[in-house]
């Protein structure tokens, strides 16, 4: 096919309007949410003392951290879905959840504690955390990759890693209501390991799936 012929053909297809990446991503995540939520209730469920736990600021802080991670990753992911975009000026958004978590650790340190630091850090749910968060993030990760495939990221592996962060953030938000370990030290350790695992999977999958 001559290039002129191709150009004429592309112009003939100009009427076709693609949806914005954000729209497709939102749709995909909304479709994946019921799957992860069903996994959550089938496998783990909300902790029995949730009504009391809600009055503990460190329980609530877990949701602030995980949602901050999900939201900032969505913002960065959408930004990077444009080919000329780079992390510059946007990467700091991903530090917000880490900053909140550090502030949480700091304030917990200043309060009198019943349990020693290492006990709080190790907690009693670390293995559940390391399985539940990655498992529940898989439907979100598949959806995020599908949605971001609609974009044109210059660095597919980076975009895939962001998809991993995003889905780990959403999955950890669900898991946080099951987990009875509320210490920011526990969150900083085990949630982070689980998130890193999902991020690595996302980067690997992204490098294959997000090329355009």
């Amino acid at each position, binding site marked *: 096919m001559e290039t002129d012929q191709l150009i004429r*053909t592309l*112009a003939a*297809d100009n009427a076709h309007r693609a949806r914005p990446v954000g729209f497709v991503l939102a749709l995909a995540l909304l479709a994946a949410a019921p799957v992860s939520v069903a996994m959550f209730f089938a496998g783990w469920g909300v902790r029995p003392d949730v009504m009391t736990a809600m009055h503990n600021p460190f329980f609530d802080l877990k949701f602030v951290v995980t949602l901050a991670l999900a939201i900032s990753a969505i913002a960065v992911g959408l930004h990077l879905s444009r080919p000329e975009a780079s992390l510059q000026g946007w990467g700091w958004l991903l530090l917000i959840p880490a900053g909140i978590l550090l502030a949480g650790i700091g304030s917990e340190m200043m309060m009198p504690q019943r349990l020693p630091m290492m006990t709080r850090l190790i907690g009693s749910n670390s293995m559940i955390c390391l399985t539940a968060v990655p498992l529940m993030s898989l439907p979100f990760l598949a959806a995020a990759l599908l949605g971001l495939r609609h974009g044109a990221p210059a660095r597919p592996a980076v975009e895939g890693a962001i998809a991993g962060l995003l889905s780990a953030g959403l999955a950890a938000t669900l898991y946080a209501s099951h987990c009875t370990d509320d210490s920011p030290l526990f969150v900083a350790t085990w949630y982070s390991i689980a998130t890193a695992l999902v991020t690595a999977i996302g980067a690997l999958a992204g490098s294959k799936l997000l090329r355009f």
Partner: protein
Amino acid sequence: MREREDEWTGLMRLAISGDSVAYHRLLKAVTPVLRAAARRGLARAGQPVDQSEDIVQDILLAVHLKRHTWDANAPFAPWLFAIARNKLIDQLRRRGRRVFVNIDDFAETIPSESAPETVPAGEVAAQLQSLPARQRDVLQSIAVESASIKDTAAKFAMSEGAVRVALHRGLASLTAKLREQ
């Protein structure tokens, strides 16, 4: 240079708002720039420069299918060069060399008056044959036989809407096949 790029941005805005003539003009206008950059990339990678046309067509398809990621408030050229650079690197890697492509390869290009000698592109045409019959017929009718959407619809006893769908799907699957080859 600046003027040229402002003109592109204006044309792309018109194109997005539905002006197919402006879109056609824009694609025609950027093609020599893309071709020159592709030749330069090939030369630097030690590849025969007359293979540039496949790369040009690959870039044009990506521009078309990803144009919704362009922010209409931003200048068009940086977006175009980012797409082109990505595709060029891809193509050079596929040809077996890892090369660094400088963004300035695109920005500094001044399209030459005389068209350089080039081997006709073959990849798009080859992949066209592997498409489902309906998409292939529609693409061939519009691309090769220069038929309009209306004429193509009449020829295959399809609705114009069905022709449009087949056309777009055909272009999308062509691009997917090129990426996976």
